[in-house]
């Protein structure tokens, strides 16, 4: 009985947020298109024959960037901006007095957006294969399954990081400016612009201690079939989730005590 009510809570939350996201389908299609940075990067890499410097074939590199595009599509997070706006407009107040942490709403919003985004991402991939027929491959079911989990964990890590930053709204009105600082390492160190394997050795010596390579590089390598340490990748992804979750809970608890319910 309790489980069915909880399931209904999750199902309704997702269903309603999906209906809401469908109202923005055109915008979501445009967002999906705007995420084609990996394809530009692929163009730069192949036109300059840079792949040979990291011992990766042109085909594998194109598959990597397609997978990076997919991973990015399904792990993009904007919770800090939503929460900041809702805080300033006083919309957080009614959510706070409901028996559900408001971040579940944002979480459902992101998942619903990903579902809405899926067909557009597929269409973009279809066009990618038309222009790069040599890159066509079908990953095994096992790899696909692991890649989906790893992409979800990447999303979870980014969601938790941004939620922690979002909670700073309780202290500062412009928490999104802190997120801007995080955007730079996310862009350069995650593997969105180049596979982490191509980074200089001194960068590689410390980068794996940060969460960034596990956001794009690890899931994209996994899906594209490039060599990667699967068990270590998953372990570190899970460790980051386990580390960030209590930090989020702590900062949420401290933040709600500071809440002044401005804008309402």
């Amino acid at each position, binding site marked *: 009985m309790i489980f069915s009510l909880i399931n209904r809570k999750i199902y309704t*939350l997702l269903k309603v947020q999906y209906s809401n996201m469908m109202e923005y389908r055109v915008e979501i299609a445009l967002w999906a298109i705007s995420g084609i940075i990996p394809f530009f990067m692929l163009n730069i890499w192949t036109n300059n024959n840079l792949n040979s410097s990291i011992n990766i074939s042109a085909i594998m590199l194109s598959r990597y960037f397609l997978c990076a595009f997919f991973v990015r599509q399904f792990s993009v997070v904007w919770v800090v901006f939503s929460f900041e706006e809702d805080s300033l407009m006083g919309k957080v107040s009614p959510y706070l007095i*409901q028996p559900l942490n408001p971040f579940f709403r944002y979480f459902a919003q992101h998942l619903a957006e990903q579902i809405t985004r899926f067909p557009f991402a597929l269409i973009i991939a279809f066009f990618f294969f038309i222009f790069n027929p040599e890159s066509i491959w079908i990953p095994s079911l096992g790899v696909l399954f692991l890649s989906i989990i790893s992409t979800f964990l990447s999303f979870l890590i980014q969601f938790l990081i941004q939620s922690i930053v979002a909670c700073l709204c309780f202290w500062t009105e412009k928490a999104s400016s802190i997120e801007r600082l995080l955007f730079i390492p996310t862009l350069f160190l995650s593997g969105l612009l180049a596979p982490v394997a191509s980074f200089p050795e001194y960068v590689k010596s410390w980068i794996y201690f940060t969460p960034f390579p596990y956001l794009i590089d690890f899931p994209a390598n996994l899906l594209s079939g490039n060599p990667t340490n699967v068990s270590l990748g998953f372990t570190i992804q899970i460790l980051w989730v386990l580390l960030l979750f209590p930090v989020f809970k702590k900062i949420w608890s401290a933040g709600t005590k500071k809440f002044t319910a401005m804008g309402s």
Partner: protein
Amino acid sequence: MVKNIIDVRNLSKSFDISSKEPGLKGTIKHFFQRQTKSIEVIKNISFEIKEGEIVGFLGANGAGKTTILKMLCGLIYPSKGSILVGGHMPFRRKENFLKKITLIMGQKQQLIWDLPPIESLYLNASIYEIDKFETKKRIQKLSEMLEIDDELFIPVRKLSLGQRMKSELLAALIHEPNILFLDEPTLGLDVNAQRNLRKFLRKYNEETNATICLTSHYMKDITSLCKRVICVHDGSISYDGKLDQLLKKLSPVKHILVVCRSEKDATKLENSGFTIKNKTNNEITIIVENNSTTSSLKKILNNFDIEDLYINEPPIDEIIGRILIKKNYDI
């Protein structure tokens, strides 16, 4: 004996506010050396509210009434003192407590803007773990009480303010809370929508014995719903008691406008010992004490040739306005 559902003891709340001097110099100084000061917005207040009571919180803008409501529903932490609402400490925001209360703020919405209200209703119902059958039953019951039907299936952005407010109420009451915190619920509504909302709240209170704490700048909301008012002045309670007692105390007199048949009669009335407010031609306004209204009327009707007669009480807005700027009312 009716039990207390809200118990507030020595409650205080302070906010840290940053202050900045005007001009460029002030801006630069503020950038390098931010100065903050602590302002006590609620000052050591205590009160109790009984189950089923409708209590109006009155006060000028910035007096602290909304801050009190926010502390009562657990949105903000108190700096000092204790609050018990339905046996819970609100700021702990325990699930059992949250299921008992609701907060409605005029012109602040929780409905999803681009979807019809019905979607938000089902979402709220699932958040409060109400099963489907019960949800349908409650939506039907509340929509009948609120006289809202087709509007539930139209996107919120296309609804009028009044329709939106009704839908907001429905969403806020779907879990049948027994403590309602209403912060200016009729703000911006037209006269008919305001009346319907008041009618609904009265009915909800009668049917469910819910406790209602209400703030409003529309005096009609207060006078038609609340028997008891708590006046808040500069963070302190300046009056806590029955509204009619307060009005009697503040307005112990009535104004009687007497239209005499001739100016001669008016002059005769003017010189008959009544306290006169003003006189123009054959119309004369006299001031009588509340407890001598009947005897004064008898005297006027028996002794003077009059054409018409009006009994007026000073406008309630004027009286309440006087409350808002005064610090203490000992009744």
